């Protein structure tokens, strides 16, 4: 008997069939589990996108103040750059309006300074600041799902 034949005999004793069957089943099971876990995170959501385009950087020269009513957001541009501030009052969700000294909530009188920090009224937190990115086509995209620290300003070309 050659050594090869002995090897085969050894393998068959350890039950080649049993090993491969259980091994394959384990791999298949893990792959199925992995596939199922993949479903937990959906590709798309049936809700309005939190990102919205606001146009090219050149549309926001220094000193610009723009109100995006349907997105509840203010866009400002000053010498330090561009920034987006939420217009949703942190108290009960009313829409604040822009005043000479900052923001004023019409519902319960919360007041915010131009940076969005609370200076009066029942509001518990400052207004949120949103992340601004530049899209591949050059237009600016505000993401209202991503908040950044107050004072974060962006410079785009």
């Amino acid at each position, binding site marked *: 008997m050659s050594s090869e034949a002995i090897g085969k005999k050894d393998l068959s004793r350890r039950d080649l069939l049993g090993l491969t*069957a259980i091994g*394959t089943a384990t791999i298949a099971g893990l792959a199925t589990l992995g596939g199922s876990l993949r479903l937990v995170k959906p590709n798309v959501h*049936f809700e*309005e*996108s939190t990102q919205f385009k606001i146009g090219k950087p050149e549309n926001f020269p220094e000193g610009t103040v723009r109100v995006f009513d349907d997105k509840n957001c203010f866009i400002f541009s000053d010498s330090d750059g561009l920034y987006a501030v939420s217009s949703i009052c942190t108290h009960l969700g009313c829409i604040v309006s822009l005043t000479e000294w900052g923001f004023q909530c019409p519902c319960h009188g919360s007041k915010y300074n131009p940076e969005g920090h609370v200076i009066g009224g029942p509001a518990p937190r400052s207004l949120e600041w949103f992340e601004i990115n530049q899209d591949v086509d050059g237009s600016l995209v505000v993401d209202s799902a991503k908040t950044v620290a107050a004072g974060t300003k962006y410079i785009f070309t």
Partner: protein
Amino acid sequence: MHSRFYLSLLLISSLVLMMFIGMGVYREMTSEWKTYQTEYKNMLVRNAEDDAARKRAEKLEIGLRQNYVASLNKSDRCMSCHIGVENPYMAKADQPFTLHSGDYIENHPVDKFGCTICHYGQGRATNKKEAHGKGHTHWDYPIIPTKYIQSACAKCHDYKMLQEEGAELVVKGEKLFREKGCRGCHKLNGVGGDLGKALDGIGSKPRAYYAMKHVVGEHTAYNWIKQHFDDPRAIVPTSEMRVFMEEDESDLLTTYIFSIREEEMPSKYRFLKNIVTPPRDGESLYKMFCVACHGSGKISVYDEIFDRTIPAITNPPFLRSADNKTIKNIVMEGRGGTQMTSWKTTASGLKEEDVDKIVEYVASSRTYERPEPFNYLEFQTNIDSGMRLYNNRCSYCHGKEGKGGNRQLGINLKNSTVQQVLDPEFLALTIRDGREGTPMPSFGGDGLGLSDQNIADVVAYVKTFGKKK
């Protein structure tokens, strides 16, 4: 050996399961949109103008994109492939990366409108065949061919704006629809004839509404309508539709047809500022409701589709013997047994004042004086004599007892219009003076020699056809 059998079964089923998982993974990895997005990304990186742009391009995430517009209830994934639709750098790129044509996208941003609200197709599909939904994909509203796309503009915009801002095709289509007399047979908003189907919401009808058997090419509603305009009987063999199209008229009308939609856009999307009411004078109304069959109305024509003669209604001989009251009676009651339907308000939705305008327009080419009155009521009539005369002189064309003669040369005299709508005076005048432009000759004094008394007898006999025996 049992364990051996079960172990083999486990091995085989595990292998089959792995094969399916492998196929799933492969499909996920090589999906159409993923390939396109990778290509788009590479294109952006390659053509970046500066480092910042290249960095942005490299950061582009590859993933399924969905644009959800709550107020329109639309979720469109078109941008998973048409990813450059808002990117001005893509103006010269090939599909699917091309920038949207024109300046539409500036006033109709994708995140507010989506895609399928204008273009239709299956917004949630993730490959081209299912998304465009043409042919045999069983999607009811496939993508609109570009040549009919202006039908979508009319969902929100008024015709004045469409005309001025570059959607003149649908405006022309609407005008053709009015002037080709489509509503002579088709009701729209409750007004029109009833030989054809009502056209309300026709643009939103699902695929199953159409019999696609004879449609050439993709089996879509667009092709059905277009080919049906070009040749109705090629698509519906039994169709009685009378259309005569020149050049691009069928495309224009198809565009208009698909602007007649069931669904209404939310008011904040609609842009109706200058609603122009189309003219409602006699001529416009005549065109809208009569012209499809009667044409100019100057001559009688034998129509192969209807298999009968469509009478001239604006030629002087007819207008000479028929006074406005008679014409109005015919229009209001229709002519039983023919394609001429009743235009009473209850039947056609047309107002009586509109019928008056049409009658006035038809009668406007009356040049002759009214003929000398016959004064039928002054005669003592003899029905037996009338019957003998009728059988001798009239029955060859009009048939025994008025049932219609050989090859329908003469009209059927038993029909309700002759029996109930037309007064004996009109019948007597027609027999005495004949009807120019038709085979009906003049039987009066100088013609074929019937005396007035004879004619009165014949009229009296003809009038008995309508009585129940």
